[in-house]
């Protein structure tokens, strides 16, 4: 279960960012911001190294003592960043992958919505509901 979910556009500004704990939201925003550097590093490493590994899922970006940050980049260079609680050790890699896949599918649906202009903040309620289902219930 994620604690914070963020969708970052190609130009590195947030399209959507939401966290469960509303009192310390700024801390999550900062964490997502710093994780963008790691994402960029991984993307450029992917381009230069002639590895066949050209996956969209980036895996664990960096761990802190309380939280772990995972990343995923789409072919349109839109990044998804997810922060999960470190104490939740039951979360396996393929669960994170399936959460990112759901995020990607919902983002594609948002993109195909004729009322959505690419580049705007995401205000779709369907997207909100999907993200809520992925985040832990606090209080």
């Amino acid at each position: 279960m994620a604690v914070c979910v963020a969708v970052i556009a190609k130009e590195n500004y947030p399209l959507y960012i939401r966290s469960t704990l509303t009192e310390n939201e700024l801390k999550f925003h900062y964490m997502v911001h710093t994780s963008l550097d790691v994402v960029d590093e991984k993307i450029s490493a992917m381009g230069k190294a002639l590895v066949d590994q050209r996956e969209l899922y980036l895996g664990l970006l960096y761990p802190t003592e309380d939280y772990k940050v995972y990343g995923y980049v789409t072919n349109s260079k839109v990044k998804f960043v997810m922060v999960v609680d470190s104490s939740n050790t039951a979360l396996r890699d393929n669960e994170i992958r399936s959460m990112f896949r759901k995020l990607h599918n919902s983002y594609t649906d948002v993109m195909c919505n004729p009322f959505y202009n690419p580049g705007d903040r995401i205000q779709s309620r369907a997207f909100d509901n999907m993200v809520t289902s992925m985040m832990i219930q606090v209080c």
Partner: protein
Amino acid sequence: MADTVLFEFLHTEMVAELWAHDPDPGPGGQNMNLSVLESMGFRVGQALGERLPREMLAFREELDVLKFLCKDLWLAAFQKQMDSLRTNHQGTYVLQDNSFPLLLPMAAGLQYLEEAPKFLAFTCGLLRGALCTLGIESMVTASVAALPGCKFQVVIQNS
């Protein structure tokens, strides 16, 4: 299958509707109609550029993106692949389709040559939109030598 003709009929109606109000609008009106079609194609291309590469691995370079356009995008939109892709390795690509499905029902030769650009504007926008989502700013133009074959020229804008 009937699904392919649905888009063809819709596209024909779109073009007809734009020219129905004023059959001879002069160069200004003509350009406006063409850019309306092109921007419609652009928005559709943006959405397709997000949806189609979903299960694919990340594109490594520009040529991969162009190959994706010629194979997967064309297959999804027109149920066939592009016939040829040429490049000068300096940012210009020429995509050639020898029997473009939107021109196929019109003629097979030089008849209706002047009307052909109207039916290519939407597809130019489609290519430009898909390229934009995949991170490539470009300019797409189309030319017809003889129906139903046409060439799309993609020029990558380097900032």
